[in-house]
């Protein structure tokens, strides 16, 4: 065996390498946060939050409609995507051996990896061609994006619920469907919430599917069948503007708000699904 001194040195080198890798991994994350927060905060103002979006290069105005649009589109997408995802996940977990389940599981995994622009085209063909650029079209595209994420995490969370818990309820004369919807679901709610959060966070920042579906707008929400603004689109537009001094700060402000919205949703869902007995 090699000497203790040598092995100790080896250990120290490996530990330092691990630390170094961690720091390198944190640099982009930290710089994104610092940059967004400092630049975003300096752009922050009452009018930024609550006024309509001005044309590119024109001073004044804000990004109010984009905040409103993102909240509405994400909420509508969640309303469609979460129930479908959760119930699909329940099916996959509770009937895991059935043939349909294995086919569905495979297709679901494929759907997870479909590029978001493709879902945008899908939403465009499915909804935009019929009723035009609209909130509904955007929500449908984003909901389709959510479903595989929510399905998979729900399935995994439910599979983790011990069989003994299910049996305890079934032995009390609780029908199987009720056992699943009460005891099993509430045991798995933390895992399911994580899946929902991942999905909401992911769709909140999506730009590509929205470009093709909600189109973007400078004005306040005017109906579910009308185009609307959304933060990712606004960030995209302002950052591409040639009037950098006027528009770039707005893009940073919008970025900060987007991060804040995702964080707020995160905290709310975590709080709502916290374990009563931690």
């Amino acid at each position: 065996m090699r000497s203790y001194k040598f092995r100790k040195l080896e250990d120290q080198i490996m530990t330092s390498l691990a630390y170094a890798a961690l720091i390198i991994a944190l640099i982009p994350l930290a710089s994104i946060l610092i940059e967004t927060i400092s630049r975003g905060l300096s752009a922050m103002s009452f009018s930024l939050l609550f006024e309509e979006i001005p044309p590119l290069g024109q001073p004044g105005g804000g990004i109010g409609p984009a905040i409103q649009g993102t909240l509405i589109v994400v909420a509508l997408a969640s309303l469609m995507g979460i129930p479908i995802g959760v119930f699909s996940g329940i099916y996959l977990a509770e009937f895991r051996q059935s043939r349909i389940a294995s086919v569905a599981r495979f297709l679901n995994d494929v759907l997870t990896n479909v590029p978001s622009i493709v879902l945008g085209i899908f939403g465009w063909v499915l909804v935009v061609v019929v009723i035009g650029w609209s909130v509904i079209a955007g929500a449908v595209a984003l909901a389709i994006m959510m479903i595989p994420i929510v399905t998979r995490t729900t399935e995994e969370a439910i599979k983790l619920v011990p069989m003994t818990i299910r049996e305890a309820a079934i032995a009390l004369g609780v029908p199987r469907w009720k056992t699943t919807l009460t005891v099993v679901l509430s045991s798995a709610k933390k895992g399911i919430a994580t899946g929902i959060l991942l999905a909401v966070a992911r769709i909140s920042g999506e730009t590509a599917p929205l470009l093709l579906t909600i189109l973007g707008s400078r004005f306040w929400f005017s109906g579910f069948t009308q185009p609307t603004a959304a933060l990712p689109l606004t960030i995209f537009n302002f950052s591409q503007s040639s009037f950098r001094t006027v528009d770039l700060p707005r893009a940073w402000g919008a970025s900060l708000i987007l991060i804040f919205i995702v964080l707020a949703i995160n905290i709310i869902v975590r709080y709502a699904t916290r374990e009563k007995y931690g």
Partner: protein
Amino acid sequence: MSYKIEIQSLSAWFGSKQVLQDITMKIKQNVVTAIIGPSGCGKTTLIRCLNRMHELTPRAKVTGRVLLDGEDIYGENVDPVTVRRRIGMVFQKPNPFPMMSIYDNTAAGLKLNGVADKHRLDEIVEKSLRAAHLWDEVKLELGKSGASLSGGQQQRLCIARALAIEPEVILMDEPTSALDPTAAAKIEQLIRVLAEDYTVIIVTHNMQQAARVSDFTAFLYLGKLVEHGSTKDIFENPKSELTEKYITGEFG
């Protein structure tokens, strides 16, 4: 004394593996019947057939009849859910619902079946916890998590939970095997008291326990019923040589 349960030619399978072979036995009302036998002999499967839990396992199969008060629980129009409300079960490992309080655990069977009357729930929770000899230990902290109790208390909570739906028969699958001797002794005492009002069937691999708590004992070996009789007879004058060998510890 009448027969509460009559098992007639009961056989059970997991896939193609037969685990119970043609079991026929009668179980009397308001007595404790112990089922003993070496590991893997089908003890647990036998009681899981009595409240139709066996069929929950994928690819499990049952044939034969199990009469509860003369009526076949495997009959065509019998809902397994109703059977399970009449035949309660306590499992080997205490399994209180981890996300529920002591109160909610006890009331779980009723609440999940739609009983919402707070007054009635309070009454049944207290009655069941008293019957499970747990009330005095938990009456001041009914809101605490069921999982925060000790192992023995958790098992008594599971007994209270089973009693709360007012079953007629209570099945116990090695209810003390995960507990320390003191906690086990409390459960054994409780089983004796429960036999005054309920028909109790207990699976155990502990022969002393069978001798202490049961009035009747059935010895199972390799999926077959070898002998069934009063506990006194089984332990003192077994008819079968196999039973005698098992009782005296020659194998097992």
